[in-house]
């Protein structure tokens, strides 16, 4: 009887110990707050792919989708922080103030805010991707592949992120083909397939034979496929939606960063930082190049990709002028991150004005 009691006592101790160890090592819970539905096959979808990578690495995750950038966000964040989550990723620009506010109330929970710049408390970190590097590659391809010298660009909202993309794209396209014109249509939506398709159709009807996009749905590449012009995938590899039209895609790859940060929490090594990763760190990924691209262009693109990754080439290397001809970046200089983060003027060669 005694023996039995001792044995069961010991075994339960062992069991308890194992459970505790497991809990310490693995029981970090991560939460993700999304602006859109995970079914958008764009921005939120790619973040959710990243979340799944965290899950695959053995951590528990939760997500809340379709959270408005208002007082609702605060409520959701508070709830997540209260329910035992150790790290919370807020994946839209508008969550900036709610994230900082709630972070103050929960100093033991780590907060990671995407695309923002405010880190008011030691438990808030920010992260973003240098998508403009991908657009330098797209501009190079578009400038080479266009025959009509008119390139269409469907844009979403006039914010620095989008303006930076248009500028980076246009600068690269002009470099390989000084005669090109970039026509921009603002759709004022991140995803509305119908509207995006209509915007693309308008550009195609007006002579554009390459279409770039800074909205999230696959409607634009499908429209390009129907009309027999070229296009580029956005956020994820869109090749299967338009095998003939899509020359390549710029993919958002959040997974490695998310796994890194959650592991850092588990190991106790997490610290506040501001991350802005590009092609070099694998946060921006260029999908496979289409075989319709001539082989010299393909090798040029691959070299450019390597140079952007190593830092040998910068997307914004001077001399760069704005539309009025004022010097933005001097010869031999590159734009610093502060300038890039607040970029709200078109470079020379972009047509039209930025809508107010």
């Amino acid at each position, binding site marked *: 009887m005694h023996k039995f009691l001792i044995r069961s006592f010991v075994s339960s101790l062992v069991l308890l110990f194992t459970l505790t160890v497991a809990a310490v090592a693995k029981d970090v819970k991560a939460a993700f707050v999304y602006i*859109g*539905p*995970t*079914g*958008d*096959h764009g921005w939120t*979808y790619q973040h959710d792919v990243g979340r799944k990578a965290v899950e695959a690495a053995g951590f528990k995750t939760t997500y809340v989708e379709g959270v408005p950038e208002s007082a609702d966000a605060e409520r959701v964040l508070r709830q997540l922080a209260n329910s035992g989550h150790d790290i919370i990723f807020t994946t839209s620009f508008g969550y900036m103030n709610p994230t900082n506010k709630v972070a103050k109330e929960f100093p033991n929970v780590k907060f990671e805010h995407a695309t923002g710049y405010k880190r008011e408390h030691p438990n808030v970190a920010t992260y973003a991707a240098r998508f403009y590097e991908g657009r330098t590659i797209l501009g190079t391809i578009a400038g080479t592949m266009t025959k009509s010298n008119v390139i*269409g660009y469907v844009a979403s909202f006039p914010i620095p992120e989008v303006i930076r993309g248009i500028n980076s794209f246009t600068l690269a396209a002009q470099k390989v083909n000084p005669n090109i014109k970039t*026509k*921009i*249509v*603002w*759709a*004022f*939506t991140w*995803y*509305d*397939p*119908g*509207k*995006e*398709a*209509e*915007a693309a*159709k*308008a*550009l195609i*009807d*007006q002579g554009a034979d390459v279409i770039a996009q800074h909205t999230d*749905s*696959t*409607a634009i590449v*499908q*429209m390009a496929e129907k009309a027999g012009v070229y296009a580029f995938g956005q956020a*994820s590899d869109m090749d*299967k*939606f*338009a095998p003939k039209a899509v020359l390549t895609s710029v993919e958002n790859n959040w997974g490695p960063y998310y796994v890194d940060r959650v592991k850092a929490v588990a190991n106790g090594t997490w610290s506040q930082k501001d991350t802005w990763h590009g092609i070099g760190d694998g946060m921006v990924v260029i999908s496979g190049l289409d075989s319709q691209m001539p082989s010299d262009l393909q090798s040029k693109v691959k070299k450019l990709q390597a140079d952007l990754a190593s830092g040998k080439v910068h997307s914004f290397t001077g001399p760069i002028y704005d539309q009025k001809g004022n010097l933005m970046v001097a010869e031999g200089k590159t734009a610093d991150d502060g300038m890039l983060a607040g970029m709200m003027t078109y470079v020379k060669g972009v*047509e*039209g*004005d930025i*809508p107010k």
Partner: protein
Amino acid sequence: MIIDVNFVGLIIASIMASAVPLILASCGELITERSGVLNLGVEGMMIIGAISGFALMTVTGSLIIAVFGAMLAGVLISTIFAFLTQTLITNHVATGLALTIFGIGISAMIGKNFVGIPGKEFPVLFEGLKDTIPLLSPILFGHSIVFYFAFALPFITSYFLKKTKIGLIVRAVGDSPESASNQGINVRFVRYASILYGGAMCGLAGAYLSMIYTPQWIENMTGGRGWIALALVVFSTWNPIKILIGAMIFGGLTIIQFHMQAIGVRIPVQFLTALPYIVTIIVLVVISRDSRKIRLSTPSSLGKSFHKDN
């Protein structure tokens, strides 16, 4: 830039293509409203049609099954509305709004497995005639069967309401269910049928979006077109031919706006987005100034529940 006739033809063709879902949903809702039932669930029925069509196309591989399946899905979801408002005599407005919220939610749930799958190519008719006549060719040829059906539908609907006996019965039920009932018409049956027909057309409108216009499934992909279709019915003063005109105007606003942007003319986008609703309010104000006009065009018992006293 050079304005050539083919370019104008292309723009008109784009506008017509964007008007198709509005025409289909509005013509369906018009019949429902003519029978005296206000169904605010158009957006919900459309999104159910969109996911059902896309899902069936992906699973079965048959476009015909998908199109009719989407219509059937619209019928099924509108049956819920019909049962609630006609059998349980619930409030039309509240039930319709609930239907929209329900539709958006359930379509997102079903749609989870269909995100990121490319749609199939939908066959177009008269492709070979595309370059034969300047200006008219892009307008007349190279569209899907649903496109041609949509542009015939307002005329069919108009004929149905004005010239057929069943059309007269639908109008009678919408204007005075009491008198119709006294004449021996089964009001509840007529209203059920009108609601289900409206559901079928909204389902087809949704399927057009997810299978033909932008062949893919994305949550919330109807993007408020159901509400514009509802506004369109009021705008048209319950006249199917005016739906055709209104749909071209409402659908054309975005496209004209995009073309102007590409040319370099700037118009405030927020204003254009609000324009369909502003125009509808103006039309409402104009028709409500003339009581005779209201009596003539509005179904008198619109949105009122009908209890048959036994």
